[in-house]
């Protein structure tokens, strides 16, 4: 094994769409090294000690924001946090003005979550700093997809050839799109499953299978990634009631036991217990939900480290 010098093909992480297969492998391999660092008594390395990162969140977040902040701190970067709800955005400041003001304080990287799709791409065209997309509307959530792939790789050894079913609210999900692209680039087969109203019309053009029967989807897959129903994004009723959704698309122990194989259960969080997944399944041995959260820090460290290496 020799040390080779390689780097990402992109300066920002705006979406999985911009990454090639080598980028994904590089990020996942580096994440494995950072995971080892996170198991040491002192979980900190000095790599980014000269970098300042702003976490700019225009939308609520628990896991992603904490995970990014921890990843930054474990890399010794300086961090500042910004939440739109308690800022001058409510006084009418534009996105570019807000970010430029943050950059005027000598910030090198921006980690941004925004309710509108394409906000990260837009920003990358107008400002100088490197941008990491932490979720933009219903578009992409690249670090979530990378950590999902990392967790699958950890469980099965390889992502290639695995069958992954993404189940639930595909229409409003940025996790779904990023996951589809990320899994396909690594050679996995992807199926989406949900009620007709929550499956986008043109999803087949991405080359995924579409299934409306939960049992058939589960029978097909090795890994089921259960998504949350995003009620906050649903302006009209896409299904009659949560109770009915839960009866048709909720994953419960009885259904899981009735399959003639064992499957691995994932969930990007936050879980609506009793809606898309019951507690006994979420907390069972089949579930790697908390592994996903643990791996999130290592994957985000890898992304920030590799992007920092692109700064000239």
């Amino acid at each position, binding site marked *: *094994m020799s040390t080779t*010098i390689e780097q990402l093909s992109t300066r920002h992480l705006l979406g999985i769409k911009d990454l090639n297969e080598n980028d994904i492998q590089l990020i996942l391999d580096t994440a494995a090294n950072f995971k080892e660092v996170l198991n040491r008594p*002192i979980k900190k390395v000095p790599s980014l000690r000269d970098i300042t990162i702003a976490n700019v969140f225009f939308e609520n977040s628990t896991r992603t924001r904490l995970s990014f902040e921890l990843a930054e701190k474990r890399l010794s970067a300086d961090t500042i946090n910004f939440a739109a709800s308690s800022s001058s955005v409510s006084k009418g400041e534009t996105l570019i003005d807000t970010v430029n003001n943050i950059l005027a304080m000598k910030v090198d990287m921006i980690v941004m979550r925004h309710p509108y799709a394409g906000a990260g791409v837009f920003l990358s065209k107008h400002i100088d700093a490197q941008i990491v997309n932490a979720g933009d509307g219903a578009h992409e959530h690249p670090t979530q997809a990378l950590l999902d792939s990392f967790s699958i790789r950890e469980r099965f050894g390889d992502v290639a050839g695995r069958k992954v079913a993404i189940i639930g609210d595909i229409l409003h999900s940025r996790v779904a799109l990023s996951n589809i692209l990320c899994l396909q680039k690594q050679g996995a087969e992807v199926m989406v499953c949900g009620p007709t109203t929550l499956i986008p019309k043109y999803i087949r053009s991405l080359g995924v299978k579409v299934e409306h029967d939960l049992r058939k989807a589960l029978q097909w897959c090795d890994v089921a990634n259960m998504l949350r129903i995003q009620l906050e994004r649903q302006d009209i009723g896409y299904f009659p009631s949560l109770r009915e959704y839960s009866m048709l698309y909720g994953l419960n122990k009885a259904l899981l036991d009735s399959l003639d194989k064992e499957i691995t259960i994932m969930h990007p969080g936050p879980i609506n217990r009793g809606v898309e997944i019951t507690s006994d399944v979420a907390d069972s041995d089949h579930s790697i939900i908390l592994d996903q959260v643990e791996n999130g820090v290592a994957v985000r460290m890898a992304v920030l480290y590799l992007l*920092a290496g692109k700064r000239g």
Partner: protein
Amino acid sequence: MKQSILLEGAKFQITIRRLCQQLIENHCDFSNAVLIGIQPRGTYLAKRIQKELQEMTGVDVQLGILDITFYRDDFRMKGTNPLIANSTDITFMVDDKEVILIDDVLWTGRTIRSAMDAMQAFGRPSKMELLVLVDRRFSRQIPIQPDYIGIQVDSIDSQKVIVSWEEIDGADSVELITEKK
């Protein structure tokens, strides 16, 4: 390009054995000592030393593998790309242990500085020593000197010292390579 062989065959083997003898002299039964090979190429020397010590004393000395990529001081400097990390495998605590850092070539000393930083994440050793197969003397950029030296080489910056290992390169040797312009 001019190549001169500094060490090979029986002489290479004798050098490794001498390093082991010196270690035994200082650490007796190795009850409190651990070996740490520095990635990537210090690991071959560390494994060889561990094997040799096993044959000479019958003791299995604990061996760890350390990668220092994330501790480098030249990350993001002009012209250098981020280095891909290798794996680290240290399954024991080093608190109050005598740590013997092992690398193949000591040149500027910067790798060893990073390694000393990295070791802090695994505890506070009672003592840290440095063993190298090749010491490129008079080329240090920071004040670090080895405790155990295979051979010393006088070289200039444009020359390269290459250590080959039977396990991966087919034969054991140390070569000094001079690029002719």
